[in-house]
């Protein structure tokens, strides 16, 4: 009896008593093998420890990173960031009035209907929506141009901007606006001094939801831009699936991850915590 008691005490101290944690083993093992280990392997490829013909080299090398950081590729990275930025800002400008109208101005019944209408495209995959846009652009002879890509990016990412803005604006306390009016502020002033600052959280959330994935986007540039537009995404695709240059591709991906991490760290440091 004493032994049992001691065993139980030790286990509860570590927090391992009960069957609960054992349930976690199969899923964690699965994730470890098929999600986390592949990342480590990708990293090993990028520094050349895994070489051609699957030979293991002991000495890591930075040669692939140097290859990946050549001016041509850097231009591609800059281009991707640029497109992502244009997309984000355009989406913000277009989405804000929509979210504002639905959240604050539409009647209750209309609001539900409109939100469903906004969310519906969300449920349709990028591939299908981009194809749909392709049909119009092709008949307008606008395919395979830079503009087509930007339009496509905005088209695909718009719902990602509308939703967080709406969620944030919908929670806005109307009485704050009313208080502002009674204190003598015009609707425009109220918007600038009350609504806009309070919706900042939604704006930031929307920008992140659009910008971060947009940097790595390759469906839109490929389908709508063809060879005329190159982004990190299309470059990665080419390196992996066309040229089978795993090593440079891995290096490029690691660089890409670092860019994303850098963005997230900037966000956390400057603006505050992240909520999933």
């Amino acid at each position: 009896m004493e032994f049992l008691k001691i065993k139980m005490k030790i286990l509860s101290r570590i927090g391992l008593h009960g069957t609960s944690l054992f349930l976690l083993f199969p899923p964690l093992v699965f994730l470890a093998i098929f999600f986390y280990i592949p990342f480590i392997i990708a990293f090993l490829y990028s520094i050349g420890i895994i070489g051609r013909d699957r030979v293991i080299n002991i000495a890591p090398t930075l040669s692939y990173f140097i290859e990946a950081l050549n001016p041509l590729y850097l231009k591609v990275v800059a281009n991707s960031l640029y497109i992502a930025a244009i997309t984000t800002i355009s989406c913000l400008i277009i989405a804000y009035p929509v979210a504002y109208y639905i959240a604050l101005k539409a009647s209750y019944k209309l609001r539900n209907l409109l939100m469903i209408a906004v969310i519906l495209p969300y449920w349709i995959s990028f591939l299908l929506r981009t194809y749909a846009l392709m049909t119009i652009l092709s008949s307008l002879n606008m395919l395979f141009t830079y503009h087509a890509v930007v339009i496509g990016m905005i088209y695909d990412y718009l719902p990602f901007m509308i939703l967080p803005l709406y969620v944030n604006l919908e929670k806005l306390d109307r009485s704050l606006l009313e208080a502002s009016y009674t204190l003598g502020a015009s609707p425009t002033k109220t918007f600038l001094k009350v609504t806009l600052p309070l919706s900042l959280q939604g704006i930031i959330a929307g920008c992140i939801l659009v910008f971060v994935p947009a940097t790595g986007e390759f469906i839109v540039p490929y389908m709508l831009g063809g060879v005329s537009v190159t982004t990190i995404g299309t470059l990665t695709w080419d390196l992996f699936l066309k040229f089978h240059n795993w090593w440079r591709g891995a290096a490029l991906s690691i660089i890409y991850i670092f860019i994303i991490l850098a963005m997230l760290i900037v966000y956390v440091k400057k603006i505050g915590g992240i909520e999933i």
Partner: protein
Amino acid sequence: MVIWKLEYDVELINITKKYGNTPVLSNISLNVESNEFFSILGPSGSGKTTILRIIAGLVKPDDGLVKIKGVDVTFLPPYRRRVGMIFQHLALFPHLTVFENIAYSLRIMKIPENEIRRRVKEYLEIVNLPAEIYAGRRINQLSGGQQQRVAIARALVMEPKVLLLDEPLGSLDFKLRQHMMLELKRLQRTVGTTFIYVTHDQEEALIMSDRIAVLNNGRIEQIGSPSEIYGKPKNRFVASFIGEANFINGKLAGDEVFVCSFGYVKIPRVNTSLNGRAVLSIRPERIRIGLSLEGLDNIYKGEIEEKIYTGSYVYVKVKVSEDTFLKCLVPVVDIENLGLEEGMNVAIGWNKQDIIGIFED
């Protein structure tokens, strides 16, 4: 072999429980007899629900032993203890009918179908819910009181060794609560199973229990019958937690005298280690009030400060000295007969045995 006494239904021996570094229960020991209605009474956060959950096996104590009918069950999981429990929010299974809820434990025990049907019907009758009407209903179709009774039937049908009740009457309205209190008492007597009842409501404990354990901050203050707890509280906490009490600060001067701001009080002989400062306690209903009084051990003059009307009786607050006010409980008829009004000078008094205790300051 010496047989001590009848086996206790539940024994807790030196139970200790901490959550993190905060002690919730410290050295709790108590015994519950067979066929007893035993209440654990204490304010919120005193640890009473934890005691219940330890008896049920839902929580393991850090130290100490739990015995049920003489068997050490401290490390036994709840489903092997045969302890019935009524949860605070009842925890009736929403996806099962009334019948299936009650039959649950019987199905686990693999009892044959017709026996299940017989027992469920029997216990539905015991809790006054005729089977023909209620057996097939869903839980959300029942009223609060009816759900209560289903929860009780569900726990009793498996003939548990003891029934644990966790503040089950909290969400009921006043009249229903009164009714259910008598119901529970009747049930316990009929079925004969020991009930261990946890509550913060002293009225429930006093009305229903054979014995009460008063709990404060994880420690047992006193265990006794309702009249003992009420009439002979062991310390200030118990005196103030159960019922209303006046507390008078002062000093012990000799064996049978208590000195305070409004004079001398003759007190029953106390053999106490208390020397010097102490607190005298007397219940409002034990203080007599009148325009003039005689024949009592202790009589004082005072002025009526305030009358608080509560329905059938009135709390009269009397100022007996600059900083001392005494609350007296007076039936409405007496107020009217004596014409007691605020500002009036009155006499109040009591006998030695009306005092419920002298406690440390």
